């Protein structure tokens, strides 16, 4: 059966409802919450601070360290085993690499900026929600950044290209593809592009066009959340 209508009744180019808030963790140097549908990401930034073990220090520049973690009770049905896993290690690395291009840590030699991304509730699209939250938290921490980063997953289910897959769509039993994209919303440069599944060149181009459009929508939400925290009454 072809996929003619989305499981949750959304438009093909419509994201799930989004909520964003900055400054949710008082003890952190910067923090943010990003909620998209049933996926909730919390990001906390600590630092720049002293880096140990010492052999990780880089005298040229500060380094960025990301920690991605899905909470045990967060998933769909099955309990996620607590602690790090191969998947979380990989996602931490991927998130770090998607955030680094906009960050300038050269003012902080030998230091580290730690980003902790926690997911208390997940329904697909966690890395994108994590990146989006982390970008807001890094800006909140007052770090030098060329641009923000917005991320969204574009997918293909049967022959339809659609935006922001939820878990049901991700688990669709049939031809499908899942493409998380992170980009700088102002200059339109892509900092993360992964793919799971199969897609044609033409469809990929269309998917990237859609990603650009949706990322600028997400950027507006990020911008408003950041301004909300610092606004003058």
């Amino acid at each position: 059966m072809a996929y003619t209508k989305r499981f949750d009744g959304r438009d093909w180019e419509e994201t799930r409802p989004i909520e964003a808030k900055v400054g949710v963790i008082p003890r952190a140097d910067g923090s943010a919450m990003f909620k998209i549908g049933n996926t909730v990401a919390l990001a906390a930034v600590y630092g720049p601070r002293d880096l140990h073990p010492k052999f990780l220090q880089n005298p040229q520049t500060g380094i960025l360290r990301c920690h991605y973690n899905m909470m045990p009770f967060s998933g769909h049905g099955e309990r996620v085993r607590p602690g790090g896993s191969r998947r979380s290690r990989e996602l931490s690395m991927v998130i770090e690499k998607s955030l680094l291009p906009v960050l300038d840590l050269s003012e902080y030699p030998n230091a580290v900026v730690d980003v902790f991304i926690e997911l208390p509730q997940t329904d697909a699209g966690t890395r994108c929600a994590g990146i989006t939250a982390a970008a807001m938290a890094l800006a909140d921490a007052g770090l030098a950044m060329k641009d923000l980063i917005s991320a969204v997953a574009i997918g293909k289910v049967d022959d339809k290209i659609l935006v922001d897959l939820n878990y049901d769509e991700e688990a669709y039993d049939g031809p499908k593809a899942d493409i998380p994209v992170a980009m700088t919303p102002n200059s339109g440069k892509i900092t993360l592009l992964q793919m799971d599944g199969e897609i044609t060149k033409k469809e990929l181009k269309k998917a990237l066009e859609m990603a650009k459009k949706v990322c600028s929508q997400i950027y507006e939400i990020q911008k408003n959340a950041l301004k909300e925290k610092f606004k003058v009454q």
Partner: protein
Amino acid sequence: MTDLLKVKDRDIVVPGEILAVGLGFLPGKGTYRDGDKLIAGMLGMVSVENKVVKLISLSGKYIPKVYDKVIGKVIDVLMTGWRIDIGSAYSAVLNLKEATSEFIERGADLTRIYNLDDYVMVQITNVTSQKLVDVSSRGPGLRKLNGGRIIEVNPHKVPRIIGKEGSMVSMVKQATGCNILVGQNGWVWLEGEPEKEIIAVNTIRKIEEEAHHMGLTDKIKDYLEKVTGVKIQAKE
């Protein structure tokens, strides 16, 4: 060529936001140029002075600057000095020479002067490119802080807490009778009668929270008069 400012003075901008278009504007602190556009390089408040557009940072850790007076905590005793935590990414070194004019014998016990966990008001004398920070505790107003309590505030709000020529902090001092020292790194030392100390802490928290409000001094004056019940004489 048309030069166009896209934002107003005192606006809050986020990284990547376009501040101005055209080559007539010059990029100041926290901004950068991309083609003919001037773009925000961090989160901050816009400040336009003539043709220079710069950003005032609102958050983030303290960055050590030469001549800043900061409050630090002794975290290690070294061969010829002390290592001091100044609430930034980098700790500072207080050399023995910069701490006392007395003659100290080689191998003497330095904890007699400053012990671990002591708080000291120090001045930053040097910061290297690798962010090695040197401080001194010799100078007017620099000393060990005995008793009292330390609170941490946002280092970017310190100028408001001190006020013009120290007007804000001296008003709090006068109203509460507490000794107050404010470090540029956002650490504040207070000492006084217990109840008065609490009033002073609450006042400083209030200043921190409302730092960007207009007419803050009058507001804080009213607040202090209300909680202490004593009229504050206006200073000339």
